């Protein structure tokens, strides 16, 4: 079966994820990639990302995702996202803390393009939110999101939590609605026990059976899911590595499809995480 047919028939998810980098200005307690300011950057150069995007489109994939690390620490990220959006619709994950006036001006051209910025916000109480992420994180996000929305940039909110009671969730939703982000653009996902989350004993265990298969490319290879190329004690995990070859993209794409087809019937992902 071709990749395009597998995507069209729902056998293979349509999005290809790319890890642009692994470093971050924050060091969240549940970070899968042990990201922090001084870690190994493991960057995927913009030219490589554009080439992967083109090959993804040509193979029949339908969407692109960019994640990290903090993606906007990559100097050319706004322009790269605009370029990727000419190839396929893109969602880019960001912690939302770097959007000063200059960066806001540079992302403004993304308005109207098929680009969504997915910004993390875990709790409606600044203190609780910042405990997991970083001091003043809540305030920075609460400032950036309305500014981006005002400029016409599509924003999604991602909430990563162990559990969330109904009242807290309602308060969180009231917040994002007030910033102009509708409920359909709010995703809630569990903490996955890999990387730093595993070190702190946080979240749910997730291996191949639990994680949806979404082709994910990093500087070090192609992986089963965006939750797969994690880092533990400074070393990249390889348990969910598919191939070291990332281009031509058909090599890991076909290997992933073969792995999916080899799964016993009924063994499908149990965690609804995107």
């Amino acid at each position, binding site marked *: 079966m071709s990749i395009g047919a597998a995507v069209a028939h729902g056998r293979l998810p349509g999005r290809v994820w790319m890890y642009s980098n692994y470093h971050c200005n924050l060091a969240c307690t549940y970070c899968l990639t042990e990201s922090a300011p001084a870690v190994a950057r493991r960057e995927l150069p913009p030219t490589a990302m554009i080439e992967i995007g083109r090959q993804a489109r040509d193979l029949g994939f339908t969407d692109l995702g960019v994640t990290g690390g903090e993606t906007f620490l990559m100097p050319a990220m706004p322009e790269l996202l605009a370029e990727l959006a000419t190839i396929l619709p893109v969602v880019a994950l960001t912690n939302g803390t770097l959007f000063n006036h200059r960066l806001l001006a540079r992302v403004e051209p993304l308005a109207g393009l098929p680009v969504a910025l997915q910004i993390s916000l875990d709790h409606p109480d600044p203190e609780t939110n910042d405990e997991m992420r970083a001091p003043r994180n809540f305030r920075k996000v609460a400032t950036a999101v309305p500014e981006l929305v005002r400029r016409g940039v599509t924003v999604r909110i991602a909430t990563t939590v162990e559990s969330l009671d109904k009242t807290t969730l309602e308060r969180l939703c009231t917040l994002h609605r007030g910033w102009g982000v509708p409920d359909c653009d709010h995703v809630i996902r569990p903490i996955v026990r890999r990387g730093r989350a595993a070190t702190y004993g946080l979240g749910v265990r997730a291996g*191949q059976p639990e994680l949806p298969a979404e082709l994910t490319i990093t500087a070090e290879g192609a992986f089963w899911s965006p939750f797969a190329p994690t880092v533990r004690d400074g070393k990249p995990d390889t*348990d969910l590595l*598919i191939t070291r070859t990332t281009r031509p993209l058909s090599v890991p794409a076909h290997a992933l499809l073969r792995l999916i087809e080899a799964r016993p019937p009924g063994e499908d992902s149990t965690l609804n995480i995107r």
Partner: protein
Amino acid sequence: MSVVERIGPDQVPLLARRYFAAGDPGPIVGALAQVPELLVVAVPLLGAALGPSAIDWRTKEIVIVRTSALAGCRYCVQAHTVVALDAGLSRQEVVALRAEGSAAEVFDSPREVALLGWIEEVAGGGPIDDASRVVMGRHWADHEIVELTMVIGVTLMLNRFATALALPTSPDTLDRLAAEGLL
């Protein structure tokens, strides 16, 4: 000391898992698992070239031990000394295959003597003498020459791989070699 870290049981990549299902698959597969897409094509090739086939086991082990000795591969010589003994080669034959200089005097079958000459030529590098081709052709069928030459080539590939990465000989093999006085 090996230059590449051994992949731990909890870090085995998806495509490599079936090779680890029955336990530690040994240093060659363990190292190749770092590049799973190479592993999945290399293992069938290694199995077809070095495993059971139309060429009998004894002959294959003559090729592997002698080629590895000529290439100076400690890992392959040690591992296949044990396999060669299991394949029925005598201790004296194995010692001769592992030694520097000609091994032919210990072997009296004209086919095996021709083969030993062929191994010296092929594993030695450089051009190959037409006379050696003639001798091989006298004792071995075309398909056997092809397969034996391939076994020499695959062994040389593994010799360089194991030597470059300083793959460690397994403790079981070392124990057996010590018991046989062949360490």
